[in-house]
């Protein structure tokens, strides 16, 4: 009986597993294989170099710089993006006029094509007639006007703002769904206990959102580690000093643009390992924290 059940279960899982193996596991193994070669990706000239690409990667300052920027993006996601999403979700869960419209508006960046988002923010940051510089000029802060995407110090924060703006709505929707699942009676009990709106947020909403916060944080961690889109598109022509370079964009530039397919594959494998490791650490920490008390 048990054997029959297992066979049926495998029959259902098999198609998904086959596709996963074909489009994820096989390319991953191939990447690792290619990373052991000095190869441009298309010539017959494939030179086996063993782990030399990985050794070079460990000494590559650009790689470490890119990784640092990934960590910056990750921190911004966790420290800025998620709290803003939680606060927005909590505010819009209350008796707010046009809450649905506002929610839809905040979610809209998520469904816009990445290129459109990039263009939008390029216009905002335009050094000559961009919205941001216009606003700064309008309120008398002429000295702060600058080419936001063209300067090494501001390019990364500028792109990070755009990334956070894009994904805040998505996380807000997750948190809004989480808030709906918190029983109204718990809020009412807190109200009767004498909790102010802020105290209810701290003592009811936030703890009630823990499971969603965990999922959102995991998505942010994994997403930040492998992020590519806006950091590649927005500083059109590239920011000075590779100011917005991430591991994924560096991998693309090395593997595709610079014809160093083997080295690019080594970066890809390293990126994959880093993403798995950070995701794994995050899950492990969550599991440790969620041990129930007093059972």
């Amino acid at each position, binding site marked *: 009986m048990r054997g029959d059940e297992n066979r049926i279960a495998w029959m259902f899982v098999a198609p998904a597993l086959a596709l996963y193996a074909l489009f994820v596991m096989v390319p991953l193994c191939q990447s690792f294989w290619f990373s052991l070669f000095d190869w441009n990706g298309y010539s017959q000239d494939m030179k086996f170099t063993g782990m030399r690409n990985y050794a070079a990667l460990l000494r590559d300052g650009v790689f470490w710089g890119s990784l640092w920027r990934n960590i910056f993006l990750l921190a911004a996601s966790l420290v800025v993006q998620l709290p803003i999403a939680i606060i927005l979700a909590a505010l819009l869960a209350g008796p707010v006029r046009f809450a649905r419209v506002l929610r839809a508006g905040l979610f809209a960046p998520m469904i816009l094509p990445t290129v459109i988002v990039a263009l939008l923010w390029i216009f905002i940051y335009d050094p000559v007639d961009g919205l941001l510089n216009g606003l700064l000029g309008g309120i008398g802060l002429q000295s702060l006007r600058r080419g936001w995407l063209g300067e090494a110090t501001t390019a990364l924060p500028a792109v990070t703002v755009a990334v956070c703006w894009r994904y805040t709505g998505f996380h807000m929707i997750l948190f809004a769904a989480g808030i709906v699942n918190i*029983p109204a*009676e*718990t809020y*009412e*009990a*807190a*109200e*009767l*206990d*004498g*909790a102010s709106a802020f*105290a209810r947020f701290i*003592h*009811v909403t936030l*703890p*009630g959102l*823990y499971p969603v916060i965990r999922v959102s944080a995991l998505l942010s961690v994994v997403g930040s580690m492998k992020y590519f889109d806006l950091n590649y598109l927005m500083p059109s022509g590239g920011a000075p000093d590779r100011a917005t370079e991430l591991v994924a964009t560096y991998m693309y530039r090395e593997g595709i643009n610079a014809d160093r397919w083997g080295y690019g594959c080594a970066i890809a494998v390293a990126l994959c390992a880093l993403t798995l490791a950070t995701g794994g650490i995050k899950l492990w920490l969550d599991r440790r924290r969620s041990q*129930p*008390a*007093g*059972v």
Partner: protein
Amino acid sequence: MAEVILDKVRKVFPGNVVAVAETSLKIEDQEFVVLVGPSGCGKTTTLRMIAGLEEITDGTISIGDKVVNDIPPKDRDIAMVFQNYALYPHKTVFQNMAFALQLRRFPKAEIKQRVHEAAKILGIEELMERRPSALSGGQRQRVAVGRAIVRQPKVFLFDEPLSNLDAKMRVEMRAELKRLHQRLKTTMVYVTHDQVEAMTLGDRVVIMEGGYIKQVGTPLEVYDFPENKFVAGFIGTPPMNFFSGNLQSQQGSLYFRKGSSMLIKLPDHYKQAMESKGPDAAVILGVRPENVLEPEKRPDLAKDTTFKARIDVIEPLGAEMILYLTAENSIFLARVDAHCRAQVGEVLSFAMHPDHMHVFDPNNGKNLTVAAAQKYLRG
């Protein structure tokens, strides 16, 4: 300690949905009052208005000597126990019970003392470090009650607190709540749809239907002297039997007639109450299952109220037996002695207890004989 007064209170929800029609009720200090009725009768809305969780459309609510219409829930000096416990899942039992006191900046020592006293009363002292997820339903409910006790409020409000418990636990908690009331001597308002809970817990029971209070009285009053057909049918398990028929005068006596075989003499003290009803007027006769008698056991009472009925189903309950009977196309129930030798399919004589018959107006459901019965039985 405080009385709760509802004066012409109304609640209309958007879309002109009247949840509570103009309602007035005085709950005495230290009284245990149970609001009971079917779903949608307005009992929970009434409780929530007392708590301040629902705005009042019209009227005033006073707690103690203060009108509380515009006072927020936290300042009404009330505590509420919810149906689904509404405990804070991430806090321990101690933290759940202490939370309200912490928010009110009570000294730590007093918080500890109050929480431990409440825990002792409820027998949950050993659970203080557990989270709600590690508690059973009964334990959670005790914690919810404990959270209310530590506040030492003027009024306790209970919103169907036992609904989520299994039958055995419900009976246990019912007795505990009763003991708690006797111990704390605080005003308690309790909402339930379970009439057994209402009867066993309440000093007085408020029966509601469709946003209206149908009757207020002690459990025995509403059971013995229901003012209308709704209360008569709602209170009591099994419910009261109803027979639709007509009045008939015969040799100076008043009878209830249904079909050709059911002619029941109504008590003489009902005559005056029936005067307004013309001869042959349509009425509904109500009698509780325990007042459907076996004539041979009470020949003194069975005189003039005997009729034949067929036994359809027998439910032996151990201490007693419920018979499902049919007479004149009416199905009704009799609660008889457990040793009754009735057989399914048999047609036997039954009688109605003359002192416990109720005659209802079929148009408005009003009990036409309640005053006469009260006067007669109470001397």
